[in-house]
C-alpha cells in the first residue's frame, strides 16, 4: 500500500505557511474582499480567493478537494442570510454546510479548518478581520495532514 505515505514531518512551526482557500460569492463577499482592497486593509497572503456566483454554488466536493490538495483551511463566504443576491441561495448554503461542518467535525476535522462566514459587500473590515482570525487559528492548530492526499506534490 505504497500510497498510504507516512506523514512527512514538518520540522518547525516557523516554516508552516498555511494555505487557506476562500470561496467568495460574487455579490457580497467577493465585493467585501474588493472593499478590503480599496480600503487597503491588510490580511495575510495565505488567503486565496475563488469567485463563485453564490455561496450555494459551493459543493462539499470542492471543500474536500481543497483539503486533499493541501489547503490548511477552507472558508466559504456569502451574503448574510436574507441578503442573497439570488434571494435564497445562502439559506441552502447554511443548511448544507451546517450538516457538512458537523459531519467533518464528527470525522475529526477541527472546526477552525472549515468555516462559513457571512460577509457583505460593505464589510471590508469584517473580511480582513475574519481572514486574519482564520489564519491565526490555523496557525495555532499547526501543520496537519488530515484529509490530505499524500500523492499531491505542492510546488509552493
Amino acid at each position, binding site marked *: 500500500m505504497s*500510497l498510504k505515505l507516512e506523514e512527512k514531518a514538518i520540522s518547525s512551526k516557523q516554516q508552516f505557511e498555511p494555505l487557506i482557500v476562500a470561496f467568495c460569492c460574487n455579490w457580497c463577499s467577493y465585493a467585501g474582499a474588493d472593499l478590503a482592497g480599496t480600503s487597503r486593509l491588510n490580511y495575510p497572503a495565505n488567503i486565496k480567493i475563488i469567485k463563485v456566483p453564490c455561496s450555494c454554488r459551493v459543493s462539499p466536493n470542492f471543500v474536500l478537494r481543497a483539503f486533499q490538495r493541501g489547503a490548511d483551511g477552507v472558508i466559504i463566504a456569502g451574503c448574510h442570510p436574507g441578503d442573497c443576491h439570488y434571494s435564497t441561495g445562502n439559506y441552502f448554503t447554511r443548511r448544507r454546510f451546517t*450538516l457538512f461542518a458537523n459531519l467533518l467535525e464528527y*470525522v*475529526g476535522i477541527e472546526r477552525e479548518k472549515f468555516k462559513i462566514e457571512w460577509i457583505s459587500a460593505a464589510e471590508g473590515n469584517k473580511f480582513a478581520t475574519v481572514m486574519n482570525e482564520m489564519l491565526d487559528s490555523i496557525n495555532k492548530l499547526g501543520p496537519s495532514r488530515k484529509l490530505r492526499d499524500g500523492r499531491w506534490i505542492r510546488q509552493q
Partner: protein
Amino acid sequence: MDKTTVRMQQIALQTLANGEVDVILGWKKGDEWYDSYPVVINDINETAELIWDAFCVNNLSKYLITELKKNLRIGVFLKGCDSLAFNQLVIDNRIDSERVVIFGLPCPGMIDPQKVKHAGLNKGLLKVERTGDKIVFITKEGVKEYIGRSFDYDKCLNCRCPNPVVSKYMLSDAVTRTDEEQYFPDVTEIEKMPLEARYDYWTKQFSKCIKCYACRNICPLCSCETCVFDNIAAGVSSKADADCEQQFFHIIRAYHVAGRCVDCGECSRVCPVGIPLEKLNRKIIKDINQLYGDYTADTDIAKSPPLGTYKVDDFDPFDGSKQGGKK
C-alpha cells in the same frame, strides 16, 4: 408452513392471476438455512416457492427502479424499513407508486447468520424458524429453542419502524415494540471522543474500505442512474487505495443520503470489512432532527426533504455577529 408465508403465496397467486400485477418481487429459499434471496416472478406456478422467514433481509424496493422499466405493474413485499425506502424513492421520483402494489410485512427482526455462526449453532443446521421473539433452530440432531433477540442483526435491534408505513395488503398483525428507544447512543459515543481520537477512528475505519461499493449498491436510496463515483468525467472517481480517497468517498456518500437515509442499516450489514457506515448516516439524521425538526425520511411523502427547503430563522452556526464587522 409459516402463516405469513402461506398468506404471501396466496396473495401473490391471487394478484398475478387476476392481473392486478404483472410480476411479483419476493424472496425464495436457497439450499442453505440462511439463504433467502430476492426474486422476480411472473409465473403463478412459482408463487408456491415464495417464502417469508427471518432471513428475508433484502429490501426489494430498490429492484422496483429497474423492474418498473420492464413491467407495467408490480407487486412487492415490503418490511417496515423497506417501506420507508419505498416512500423516499417516490419522493425522489425514482418510481411510479401508482404502478406498485405493496404487500406489507410487519417484521419482528432479521437474524444475522454470523451471530448464529459465532454461537456455534450453524453446524448441521437445516432451518431456522422465528415467531415473534421465539427462534427455533432445527438441526439434523434435533430442535433448539431460543427466546429473545440475541441473533438479530444489530441494525434490527435499533429498529424504529418494524411495521410498513404504506401498503395495500397487510399480511400479518402489526409488531409491537416495548424496547425503550435510546437517542442515538452510538453517535453520541463518537461525538464524545476527543477530536484526534475521532479522526484516528474514522481514518482507520475508512482505510479498511476496498471500494467494492456494496454499501452504495445495497442502499435503496443510492439510486442514481450513474453514480458520480462511477463517472470518470465527474472527476471525483478514483479507485486508488489512498486514505484521502476513502475519506472523500465515505463523507460524500453519507452527505448524498443526508435527509434521505431511512436508517435501514443495510450499508453496514453488507460491508465486507465492517465499516460502521450507519454511524455516519445516523449522525446526520441526529443533526437534522435536532436542527430542523424531527425528520426521518419518511412516512410523509408530502414533506419537503430537509436539504430541499429552509427556514429564514434556521439555526445559524456561522452567524459572525460576535466578530469584526462594521464599526
